[in-house]
């Protein structure tokens, strides 16, 4: 039996933002492992109160750079629900395309810039060698996929980050026919690169298997915007019950200090979505990702990466269908049918289910609101898994560097977003107390 004491302080890299992991290992035993989201808070929940509701979505988009368009659409949906606003069919298509652009761009950033260097023993994606045929292809694939997703976001929503066109009740601007044609061309051209991405992650040997439960917004066809919230063990929540679910399930869970809710923990994000609704993916995605999809449902956390790659393909295939389906004519914004109200928005952000709640008064001011982010929901699972991983590795007497790398890899597989949940993530394995 190894009697390891560990002392290590290092910043976690290649994640979106940061938090603190405190680990104490004493005589080969993990005495403490807390993954604390200790944000230097920017106090959006307080700042939103008293603001005119029309300014709310663009304010709340600033919670997070990378997930910004998910916050934007979730806040728009919450305001629309609060005031009885029904967006047009064209607006719904544009919302779907906005989410597709976001998921393509965000997943590709995570897969290529954050996760892939680990698989090739590199420190940075830019260290990939252009003279090596395989690595050359990977470099070009990565930036082509990201660019296609970013272009889709730009023509539909105005920008890949903090988009300007989506508003409450509709979009301020619609794409030109030339832009639509160009977007389809870019997506079709980059599609083989997406298939290669899926193969890369399908062949990855990284494994961390754990039993957990999964929860996601699920619809047929597959959607980041509509459907019911379901879990793998029978929860089924209709849209009309979102508020109750948010107030009585999600909020208490996210603030819990224990590791389980109702005696169980759950995970949100790509792995949850593909586990729960792989049958509803686009037909072309199912056809061309058959081998990869046969690995789901999966409890291997590293399959979250593969699930993201599959979602990129679905987002491509659905967008290639949706783009030619509309004439994209500028429309009047849909009007409120109520002067005040409470609304819940629920979307599947890249990292999982995102909830916004807003209360609007008769003067059109925000009275109060709540925001529950995916990483807050996954935090407990991450912490439990890190402890298990350390315990599993300790008998092998790993060097601090190896332990650090493996912990970071596992954290990266969850793709946490600390800009949403917090800021300043450092891994601090403190010296064992004597």
């Amino acid at each position, binding site marked *: 039996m190894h009697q390891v004491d560990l002392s290590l302080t290092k910043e976690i890299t*290649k994640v979106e933002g940061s938090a603190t992991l405190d680990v104490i290992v004493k005589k080969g035993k993990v005495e403490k492992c807390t993954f604390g989201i200790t944000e230097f808070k920017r106090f959006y929940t307080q700042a939103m109160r008293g603001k005119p509701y029309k300014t709310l979505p663009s304010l709340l988009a*600033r*919670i997070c750079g990378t997930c910004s368009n998910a916050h934007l659409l979730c806040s728009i949906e919450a305001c629309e629900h609060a005031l009885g606003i029904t967006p047009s069919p064209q607006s719904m298509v544009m919302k779907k395309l906005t989410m597709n652009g976001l998921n393509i761009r965000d997943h590709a*950033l995570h897969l290529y*810039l954050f996760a892939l260097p680990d698989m090739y023993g590199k420190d940075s994606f*830019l260290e990939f060698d252009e003279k090596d045929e395989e690595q050359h292809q990977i470099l070009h694939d990565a930036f082509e996929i990201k660019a296609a997703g970013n272009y889709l976001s730009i023509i539909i929503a105005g920008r890949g980050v*903090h988009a300007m066109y989506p508003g409450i009740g509709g979009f301020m601007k619609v794409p030109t026919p030339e832009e639509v044609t160009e977007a389809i061309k870019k997506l079709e051209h980059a599609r083989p690169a997406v298939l290669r991405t899926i193969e890369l992650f399908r062949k990855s040997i990284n494994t961390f298997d754990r039993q957990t439960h999964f929860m996601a917004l699920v619809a047929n066809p597959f959607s980041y915007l509509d459907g019911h919230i379901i879990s793998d063990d029978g929860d089924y929540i209709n849209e009309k019950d979102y508020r109750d679910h948010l107030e009585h399930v999600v909020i208490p869970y996210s603030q819990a200090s224990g590791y389980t809710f109702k005696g169980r923990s759950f995970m949100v994000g790509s792995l949850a979505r593909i586990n729960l609704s792989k049958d509803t993916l686009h037909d072309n995605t199912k056809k061309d990702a058959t081998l990869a999809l046969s690995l789901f449902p999966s409890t291997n956390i590293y399959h979250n990466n593969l699930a993201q790659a599959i979602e990129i393909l679905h987002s491509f295939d659905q967008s290639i269908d949706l783009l030619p389906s509309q004439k994209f004519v500028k429309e009047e914004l849909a009007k409120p049918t109520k002067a005040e109200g409470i609304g819940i928005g629920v979307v599947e952000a890249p990292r999982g289910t995102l909830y916004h709640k807003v209360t609007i008064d008769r003067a059109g001011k925000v009275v109060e609101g709540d925001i529950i982010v995916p990483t807050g929901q996954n935090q407990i699972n991450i912490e439990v898994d890190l402890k298990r991983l350390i315990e599993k590795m300790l008998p092998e007497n790993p060097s601090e560097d190896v332990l650090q790398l493996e912990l970071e890899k596992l954290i990266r597989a969850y793709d946490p977003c600390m800009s949403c949940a917090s800021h300043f993530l450092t891994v601090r394995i403190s010296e064992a107390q004597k």
Partner: protein
Amino acid sequence: MTENKKLRIGWFTFSCCEDSTIIFTELMNEHWEEWKRVLDVRHARVLQTRNVLDELDVAFIEGALATQEHIDKVKEIRSKSKKVVAIGACAVMGLPSAQRNQFDAKRLEEIQPLLARFSHLPKVLKLSDAITVDVAIPGCPMSEKNFMDALAGLLKEFNIV
């Protein structure tokens, strides 16, 4: 012009949503081949694990300053960098990260326990409140064009291209 000389840069993030970091990684889609040739990325948590804070030609700094640790860190970066570029609205103007500076008494009272617990500064600062800033690129997120223009100017100034 020296064949192999690269611009030694760091990309740092303080209190913000990292939107300009995302724009930076999107600009890479078009410019990565050129940047691999001309940029020596010494420090960028979003891109790599092995980061060194030694002598930098240019530090790009995103975000506002919320704690004394932020101020200490940003001063260290300034002392090791020939040029400092403030990136995005939070670095240039403080907002929206500094929105609590304008909170009314009731809201301040509400957030006080959190400010105390995490040792926040009484007021969130913009970058130029703590250090000298050479170039400011405002925007939420930063303007892509202003960033590319500034980068082109710096590459010229340091005789890289």
